[in-house]
């Protein structure tokens, strides 16, 4: 009797707990959401800490750097616009850029922003060649000059055409107070993070959170939200639960790094949150190695183009959030609208091409030539579950036409090492998105440590291609440049080096009270300064 009373008490307790959870659940979340109708604080969840946001180095998170530090000009969907420079002139020979700076701008530590500060910053970047050499502009700058307090000049070695785009990137050409320099440089760290941007980093608890507060002396339009709290949550599931509880207001990221496609669809269907998708920002493609195994044969590469059912990948795996890609770069990317025809899925055509190339179907359903099986291997970064699923879909498509596809997931570092050595048949390739596309992406094809370089090595005209890219970067004539891009992209397209899959997008999920959530040109930036809570 005594025992059964205890059992009943325990059962009762469990029942109460379950009933409580059912009753209080949604109310808790909703209460948090409605109380957000003030512009006091926005909580943003990120899987990563902001780390060192020194704008001249690469260890920090770009959206955080973007809140605190500004550049002379910015890349916008409408083109390049003034930022810390009110206007600029370019000399006729395209080698001298003169910037006229905003007057009365101060760094958040009270230091004046002037031509001298600009020179000190740009020189600090140029001196740190080791870390900044990936950006062509760094190698192209010959001289920096202070003309007067508010006029600054850059002299180039060649008329490098993407100068303005690259000056407007989140890093490295952003400005930090000269007082923050250590031993006259920023290469080995900085003593503080004083910028001219709309927010000031006021608190940072490593691996926990960072707080950004409005810069009261900001020279431009002040943001409406007073504080941005950057909360670090390494686990995606935790982020989703924190959003449901109302502890987080905004999720924002590209390529499924913040919210995977499945969760994004569920959150959209729920209707409890607002979900936003950007225009295509980058390209998701498979790069085929022209220097190895069967993919060396042009007909095999062409057959692969016909054999992959991209629509299934876009609809079935990416839940329709990404648009099928016909060409390596979207036609919305500058210089990329060159009238190339996309290849449509056609299994029969793929089979015919393979047969014509001498690959004959064997009794096991796979094709053989000279006793060798038509067997390819695709490598992917094992951190990326999406890439595995896409690989499996392709494996099934290729099996239909008699190609065996092996799938190998590797740890990120091993995957990167493989890119460098060129030991792959197929690999994933993501472009960097605007404003890096097309110039920085195409430029990287010449660097041996990139998969693109290794994959293109088997091309008959690889040498021509690399020279063409080098010449293109310093071509001053706009029409000539368009023509050169056309030749490069057409050659790559005709040689079927890439199987374009989809154009990737950036996604945001936020509570309904939050307004003004949009996208900058770069997928790596988050325009916090434009956001506000509905009053």
């Amino acid at each position: 009797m005594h025992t059964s009373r205890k059992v009943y008490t325990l059962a009762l307790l469990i029942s109460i707990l379950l009933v409580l959870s059912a009753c209080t659940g949604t109310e808790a979340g909703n209460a948090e959401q409605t109380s957000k109708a003030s512009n006091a604080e926005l909580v943003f969840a990120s899987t990563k800490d902001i780390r060192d946001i020194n704008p001249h180095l690469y260890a920090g998170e770009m959206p955080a750097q973007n809140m605190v530090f500004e550049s002379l000009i910015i890349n916008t969907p409408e083109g390049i616009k003034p930022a810390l420079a009110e206007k600029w002139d370019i000399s006729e020979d395209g080698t001298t850029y003169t910037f006229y700076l905003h007057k009365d701008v101060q760094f958040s530590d009270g230091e004046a922003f002037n031509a001298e500060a600009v020179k000190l910053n740009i020189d600090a970047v140029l001196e740190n060649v080791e870390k900044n050499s990936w950006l062509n502009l760094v190698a192209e700058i010959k001289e920096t000059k202070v003309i007067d307090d508010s006029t600054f000049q850059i002299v180039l070695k060649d008329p490098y055409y993407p100068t303005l785009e690259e000056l407007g990137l989140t890093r490295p050409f952003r400005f930090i107070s000269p007082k923050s320099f250590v031993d006259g440089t920023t290469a080995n760290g900085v003593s503080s993070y004083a910028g001219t941007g709309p927010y000031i980093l006021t608190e940072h608890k490593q691996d926990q959170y960072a707080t950004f507060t409005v810069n009261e002396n900001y020279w431009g339009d002040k943001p409406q939200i007073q504080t941005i709290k950057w909360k670090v949550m390494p686990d995606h599931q935790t982020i989703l639960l924190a959003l449901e509880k109302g502890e987080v207001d905004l999720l924002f990221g590209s390529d499924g790094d913040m919210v995977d496609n499945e969760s994004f669809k569920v959150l959209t269907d729920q209707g409890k949150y607002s979900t936003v998708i950007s225009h295509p920002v980058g390209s998701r493609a498979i790069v085929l190695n022209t220097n190895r195994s069967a993919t060396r044969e042009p007909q095999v590469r062409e057959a692969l183009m016909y054999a992959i059912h991209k629509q299934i990948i876009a609809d079935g795996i990416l839940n329709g959030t990404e648009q099928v890609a016909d060409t390596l770069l979207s036609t919305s990317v500058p210089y990329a609208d060159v009238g190339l025809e996309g290849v449509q899925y056609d299994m029969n055509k793929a089979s015919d091409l393979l047969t014509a190339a001498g690959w004959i179907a064997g009794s096991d359903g796979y094709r053989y030539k000279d006793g060798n099986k038509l067997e390819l291997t695709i490598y992917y970064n094992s951190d990326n579950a999406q890439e595995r699923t896409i690989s499996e879909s392709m494996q099934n498509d290729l099996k239909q036409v008699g190609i065996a596809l092996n799938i190998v997931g590797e740890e990120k570092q091993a995957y990167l090492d493989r890119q460098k050595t060129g030991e792959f048949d197929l690999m994933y390739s993501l472009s960097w998105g605007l404003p890096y596309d097309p110039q920085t992406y195409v430029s990287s094809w010449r660097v041996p440590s990139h998969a693109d370089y290794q994959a293109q090595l088997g091309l008959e005209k690889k040498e021509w291609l690399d020279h063409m890219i080098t010449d293109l970067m310093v071509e001053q004539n706009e029409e000539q440049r368009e023509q050169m891009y056309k030749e490069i992209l057409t050659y790559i397209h005709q040689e079927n080096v890439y199987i374009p899959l989809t154009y990737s997008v950036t996604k945001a999920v936020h509570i309904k009270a939050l307004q003004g959530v949009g996208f900058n040109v770069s997928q790596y930036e988050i325009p916090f300064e434009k956001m506000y809570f509905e009053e």
Partner: protein
Amino acid sequence: MGRYVIKRILAIIPVLIGISFLAFILIHLRTSDPAEVALRVNQVTPTPEMVDAMRETLGLDKPFLTRYVEWIGNSIQGDFGISYVNQQSVGEQIARALPATLKLSAVALIIILTISILIGVLSAIYENRLVDRLMRALVFIGTAMPSFWIGILLMWLFAVKLNWFPTSGMEQASSVILPAVTLSLVFISTYVRLIRNNMVQNKTENYVLYARVRGLKERTIIWKVFRNSLQLSITALGMSIPKLIAGTVIVENIYAWPGIGRLCVTAIFNSDFPIIQAYILIMGVMFVVCNLLVDLLNSALDPRIRREG
């Protein structure tokens, strides 16, 4: 006793050298060149010249044994090198993360002790009755579930639905409860079983029969049985402390708890070798030292061990 202590301490020296050597060599067995990794994690495209310069900076151009001796010498002084990712001292990062892990482990230990003793004793008292079976079933279910799953479930119920705790982080005092409960669940079943079985076994001993014959109260007898059963559990508990600290890896990630478990996972994802090496070394030393302390404690309690040793 003195001789035994010296003998045991001397015996762990080759073990510690073995652990440190393993921690050092494991990283070098990887195919990735640490110099390249150090460049890549900072988004620097490695060129042959830069890789050479980085090899020199990291001291990778020196012979293997020289590097090992230098590393172990510096590690003894608490200098584990510099992180490839954020260029901060690894020792400082571990020192910053360790208190969070210790706090989490301490709370988990309290939960383990309280729940295990409570359920273990109740199960032993009501041996094979409904309460015993129900409690053992509950503990079994709780511990059979993987940590990440139970962590998410607890978060959903107690943080989201009931709104009793925050989902993650360590900003509020109550933040520690859910991760500590998740962490403790794995250990609770072991101790419940241990305490229950020891008590059940002790209940059949002659001294219990004698106590009953003497007419002692049941409560007093249970207390005696419990005290006698606890000795074995203390030994097992000694080894659980390093296990608890090492076991925080998954829990710290789920609950965004900024401890060394999370530091290690982040380092693994970034191939930040100096942190991984330091983590392996510290955990190894912790296991060896705890094992030694448990042995010494047991030998102090039981002279037969000293004689055998």
